[in-house]
């Protein structure tokens, strides 16, 4: 089965639907509007159980990255990178990295997140 087979998890559906529409989304508390980590089912600040999805600006900074030197799936021939990005909205998002596997990277570097053909990826801004 392709690694891109759609998730059947209802909580994450709005995230994937956003990508299909070319939009990167993040979560906020429906009551207090503060950004919530991906995966939170309740607000960590006000205990409200309602969450809402909002479009993210697509800007952030690089927290961490890894370089796969060994392949695990045909869709990802090595070498390739995966990045952890903190969106400017204040939450962390895992993203495929667009750029050479040997390019020097720096923690904290500004990055852009783009969505194309339903796939999100990050690259240096």
């Amino acid at each position, binding site marked *: 089965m392709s*690694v891109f087979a759609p998730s059947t998890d209802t909580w994450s559906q709005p995230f994937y639907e956003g990508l299909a529409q070319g939009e990167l989304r993040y979560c906020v508390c429906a009551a207090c509007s503060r950004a919530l980590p*991906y995966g939170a089912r309740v607000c960590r600040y006000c205990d409200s159980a309602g969450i809402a999805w909002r479009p993210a600006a697509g800007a952030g900074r690089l927290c*961490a990255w890894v370089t796969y030197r060994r392949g695990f799936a045909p869709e990802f021939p090595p070498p390739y990178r995966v990045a952890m990005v903190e969106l400017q909205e204040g939450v962390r998002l895992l993203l495929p990295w667009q750029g050479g596997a040997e390019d020097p990277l720096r923690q904290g570097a500004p990055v852009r997140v783009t969505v194309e053909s339903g796939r999100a990826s990050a690259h240096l801004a």
Partner: protein
Amino acid sequence: MASSQAKAALTGFGLGQLSRNFTGSARQLAVEAILAAVKDAGLRRDEIDGLLINRSPLAPPEALPLHLQEDLQLANLRMMSGIEAEGSSAAQTVQYAAMAVMTGMARHVVCVFADDPIRPATTAGQAFAEPVPISGIEGWEKQCGLFGATGAYAMAAQEYLAHYGLDDTAFAPVALGQRAWAERNPRAFLRAPLTREAYLAAPWIVEPFRLPDCAYPVNGAVAVVVSAAARAQDGPAPPVYLHGWGQGHGGFQGFHGRGEALTGAGRAGRMAYAMAGVTPADISACQIYDAFSFVVLLALEEYGICKPGEAAAFVAAGETAPGGRLPCNTGGGQLSGFYLQGMTPIAEAMLQLRGESGDNQLQNPGLMLVTGNGGRLEYHAALLMSREARL
């Protein structure tokens, strides 16, 4: 050191054959390990009244079912459960067993872990390729190409290196030190000497992890018997006393969090130290859950033994290797000894405290910190163990 009376004791220890080949199912290996542990404790099967089962989170429930009770014909169980908290489960089984014998709910509880990831058609690499969820979005790791626990831990490891201004050679002393222990341990699977040059030349798996930064999976089983501290002298085996324990479970949001704890390990450690009336300075040896070399550095810091960012220099100075001031993972750990998840550090602690560590035997193992770590740094459990009934 404040005075601490042991809360419970580990009175039996048994193995199901450890192998890189498929010699029998996890269930069969568990039976083997349990029978060995019960015999080692000088008990009869009908004296076992508690059974706590820990299976690999990657194995299906039927791989290690509650039917172990029937397999072993244990007719007198007063407590039984499967404990599932990933790599922290094994230490947790010992904790729950200790609480059961302290309250009289049970007298002799067997805790077992068994796994058989290596099959005729499955390599160790394939067995552990499944993504570890760290994104919060179901299925997203796969879509990002983040396969295996290796990738998830490598992400945290790279952030650690960058945060403290270290480079990718920072993990080498962990791998080299543990190999030095393994060289002298006939039970260890990777015993060939590992030089710094060979480490640096080893293939990357997921950068910043090279092959020797990753645990060495095996098939096998470990079982221990937990009994009341007062009964510890009854059996033939040298008793190992349990003085404190703790757990801590929190997410991992990286090193630029909101001033919150990095992981739950700090909480697990503080609880254990308080229970035993000790401080990190009283710890004389550690058996740390080390699925990846990086985890040892982070654990030394999270458990209060090193200051944040200083564990790499501590290990590089040889403090955790043979001859060091704080021997760690004295059988080679999961990196060079064998990877049976949370039971690896417990097994190494048992052997040291019973004086069965051969050429690696410490003169005085003192107070030993034993840790478990599950998920991607989310789930933590710790034990404090000693030869002494009273600290």
